[in-house]
């Protein structure tokens, strides 16, 4: 089935009905394995047991950037390829991205207090992620403010592409500026610098959270397709009553 085939909402709804139960089941199993591995992971020689916060903080932080990346591709889909499902996908992704970014900020803050001695520091990494969170809220507000979905989609797509500039800033902020935040220890030249005892649970949790996003994203897209169907029928009903 190609992307063009999925442009048909009925076909898309049929696909999600088939795929979602399987995705939800695989996500649940992987999350359970990841949480067990995280609980069994040894304490870090410097951070002690607080290293366990990493297993939820890092997947949420990765997803905060990944979801914006996905939304940027979907924005291109709206503006360039005009795929009918592109703006449905972008609209459905924004609240999920906001939630993951919120969790990255709060779990990072709860990790920072015992390790850095502060919940918050206005350094480049933390500030740029806070800006990302505010941009997600801005996109969600924009979708609510403009009633016509196609006009809202174009405005949100442009804002998404402008906001994509922030993603490399977040990624490389720890290299470009002085910061309390540690540098990359998984995705870096020369391979991960992390011990296998921490790396394996972290990667399992990262895959589990990515699948969680995929599951919720497909479900939220399905809801958005239904919402637009409802809107069309309500407009038909209103025009029938007016006639």
């Amino acid at each position, binding site marked *: 089935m190609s992307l063009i085939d999925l442009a048909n909402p009925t076909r898309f709804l049929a696909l999600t009905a088939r795929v979602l139960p399987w995705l939800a089941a695989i996500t649940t199993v992987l999350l359970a394995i990841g949480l067990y591995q995280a609980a069994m992971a040894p304490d870090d020689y410097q951070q002690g047991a*607080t290293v366990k916060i990493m297993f*939820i903080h890092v997947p949420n932080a990765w997803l905060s950037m990944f979801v914006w990346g996905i939304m940027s591709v979907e924005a291109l889909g709206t503006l360039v390829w005009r795929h009918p499902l592109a703006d449905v996908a972008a609209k459905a992704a924004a609240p999920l991205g906001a*939630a993951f970014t919120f*969790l990255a900020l709060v*779990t990072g803050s*709860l990790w920072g*207090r015992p390790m850095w001695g502060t919940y918050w520091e206005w350094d480049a990494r933390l500030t740029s992620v806070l800006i990302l969170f505010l941009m997600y809220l801005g996109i969600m507000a924009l979708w609510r403010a403009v009633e016509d979905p196609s006009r809202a989609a174009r405005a949100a797509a442009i804002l998404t592409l402008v906001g994509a500039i922030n993603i490399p800033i977040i990624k490389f902020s720890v290299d470009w500026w002085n910061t309390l935040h540690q540098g990359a220890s998984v995705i870096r030249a020369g391979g991960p610098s992390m011990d296998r005892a921490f790396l394996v649970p972290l990667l399992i949790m990262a895959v589990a959270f990515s699948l969680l996003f995929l599951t919720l994203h497909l479900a939220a897209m399905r809801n958005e397709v*239904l919402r637009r169907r409802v809107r069309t029928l*309500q407009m038909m009903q209103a025009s*029938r009553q007016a006639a």
Partner: protein
Amino acid sequence: MPLLASLGPYASFIVTSYLLVGLVVAALIVWVGLDFRRQKQILRDLEASGVTRRSAQPPGKSS
């Protein structure tokens, strides 16, 4: 609670982090599920009142 005791002096930070993530993920799942039910219900009500999509209508009929 041997697991909690093994988390050391910063157990409250670790437990709060995991509880918060669990709560937000649960809230997302509930929100998506309730939204699905709401949209399906509105669609059912509309179709029951005779408003249907063109593709769902018999050929030759327009609403």
